């Protein structure tokens, strides 16, 4: 499969009052054409920052220290702001977690979508509104003509997220970044939204970068998965391989920590300690202070993200020893 997006050794810092937070440390992964790639990890692991870095929407205190973001053969980190404006929303678009704050409360939703089309494609208002109506219909919103004049607060959370999705697809992007798109809605609505995303992905031949903390969602929707921990990429594998044979000790613990019916009566596996501060991340492997397999070298040597099985990469010294 052809790579659509390749993030290579992306490192970035946030300059904060407390010091320099090393938010991403040489993060690498590839999203192929028509693929759904899941980025999972717990709060603060850097998954959202990675998405914002791809779109160059980082806050002003963020400093990219190195790496490349190659999209369709070109490095987005080298693009000018004007060039990025012709990529964002057109080639790559994004759906955020909370639709209520992503939509502008003072404009009708139809106006917001029509404007996207008018600005990016230079079409007349009438044609843009027609496009908005067609999109609303496609994402399953009821009474699309009437909806054009509705304000965000008049819609439910599920409907708002459908509006966000239709807006993201308005200019037929190649890549859709969805950041926790269903975290704010109930499970029955989540099922509707995920089904819709998977339908649209086939229909629009989209690649999707799906960011979530929910391992159930990635298991059901993604082709491949990257597991992040404290600003590093712990493991990248196909969905099958990741759940069947997780290599990284962090992934292994994470899967065992999930409550499920067949674990009844046994304590859940928990990871000792807490996620480290990124102001002073642990030396060597950032997971080593919490890892039950940690060796003396783990606090000194930083593991590389290497393929230890076919198409299954992990950054863990346990395997580097084995393969050498």
């Amino acid at each position, binding site marked *: 499969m052809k790579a659509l997006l390749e993030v290579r050794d992306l490192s970035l810092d946030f300059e904060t009052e407390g010091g320099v937070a090393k938010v991403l440390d040489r993060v690498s992964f590839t999203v192929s054409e028509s693929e759904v790639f899941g980025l999972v990890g717990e709060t603060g692991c850097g998954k959202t920052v990675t998405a914002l870095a791809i779109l160059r929407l980082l806050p002003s205190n963020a400093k990219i220290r190195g790496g490349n973001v190659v999209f369709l053969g070109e490095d987005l980190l080298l693009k000018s702001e004007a060039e990025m404006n012709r990529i964002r929303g057109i080639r790559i678009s994004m759906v955020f977690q909370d639709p209520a704050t992503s939509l502008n409360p003072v404009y009708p939703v139809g106006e917001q979508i029509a404007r996207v089309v008018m600005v990016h494609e230079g079409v007349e208002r009438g044609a843009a509104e027609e496009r908005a109506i067609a999109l609303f219909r496609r994402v399953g919103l009821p009474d699309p003509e009437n909806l054009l004049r509705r304000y965000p607060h008049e819609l439910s959370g599920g409907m708002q997220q459908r509006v966000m999705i239709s807006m993201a697809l308005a200019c037929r992007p190649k890549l859709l970044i969805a950041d926790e798109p269903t975290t704010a809605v109930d499970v029955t609505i989540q099922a509707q939204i995920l089904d819709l995303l998977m339908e649209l992905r086939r229909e629009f031949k989209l690649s999707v970068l799906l960011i979530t903390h929910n391992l159930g969602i990635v298991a059901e929707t993604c082709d491949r998965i990257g597991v992040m921990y404290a600003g590093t990429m712990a493991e990248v594998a196909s969905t099958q391989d990741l759940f069947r044979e997780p290599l990284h000790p962090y992934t292994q613990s994470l899967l065992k920590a999930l*409550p499920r019916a067949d674990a009844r009566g046994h304590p859940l596996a928990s990871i000792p300690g807490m996620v480290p501060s990124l102001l002073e991340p642990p030396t060597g492997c950032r997971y080593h202070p919490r890892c039950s397999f940690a060796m003396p070298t783990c606090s000194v040597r930083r593991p590389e993200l290497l393929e230890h099985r076919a198409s299954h990469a992990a950054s863990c010294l346990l395997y580097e020893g084995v393969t050498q």
Partner: protein
Amino acid sequence: MSLLRVEGLTKHFPAREGFLGTATIHAVDDVSFEIEEGETFGLVGESGSGKSTLGRCILRIIEPTAGRIWFDDQDLTALRGEPLRTTRLRLQAVFQNPMGSLNPRMRAGTAIAEPLRVHLKMTKVEAESHVHELLARVGLHAEVAQRYPHELSGGQCQRVAIARALAVEPRFLVLDEPTSSLDVSVQAQIVNLLKDLQGDLGLTYLFITHDLSLVSYLADHVAVMYLGKIMELGKALEVLERGSHPYTRALFSAVPVPDPGRKRGRIVLPGEIPSSLEPPSGCRFRTRCPWAQERCAQEQPLLRDVRGTRTACHFAESIVEEVSA
């Protein structure tokens, strides 16, 4: 023997609508169930199902509109004044957002000592040594007593909230989404702690959550709520794995399972949860139920025994047969 018995509990909130007239929010409507001593009773449902309102009525944080709550053979709804205060110490709560339920200006130790000083009339010195015991009990270092909530992680805050709830030695805890703001690995720590405490202290839990895998892991009995009504009730695994209410089936089939090999028939429900201002006539679930018939709009289904659980659906038997076929 049941420790807590809820009978016909109803909570309506008045809501203003337009210039004239008022409307009523039917938050909880005629709900009955029992909780056994020492068990974990799971209360599940989506937003607006009334599960938190129900928990708050049991704690008498809000007054129920109708119905009775029996705790240890005492009618909680009839208690007033001093007897209410002393009985209420036996029922404590832990809420979803630990940062929000702790006073930001109060050190963790002071927050835990407060109920000891107020209710158990302990002296400052007595309370202090007791606080250290409680902190140890929930797996926290004694030095945490000196910290303010913003200096603690979400998991630590939730442990402090649990220690505070345990301070007055309750028998019953209402746990309202205690882990939903936490990451999976921290959730595992808190869930393990709650299980340990239950074993050691013989506590009874009402566990309110929207996380169905969590309920399948720790609940003994479970009630599934939708728009203020119990749809199905029974032993947790019976309800979760062999539930006969179409809503239970749909709800559980909608949960993404972290097992890519397992393919299940998913029932995707159309539409959204109707407003509790004007709940549908008859069965409240009928507007989204793929099997709804005329009778569902006219006649409200009552809980009845169907295949090992109690289900409020007129057509449970035939639906189960169709789904299992």
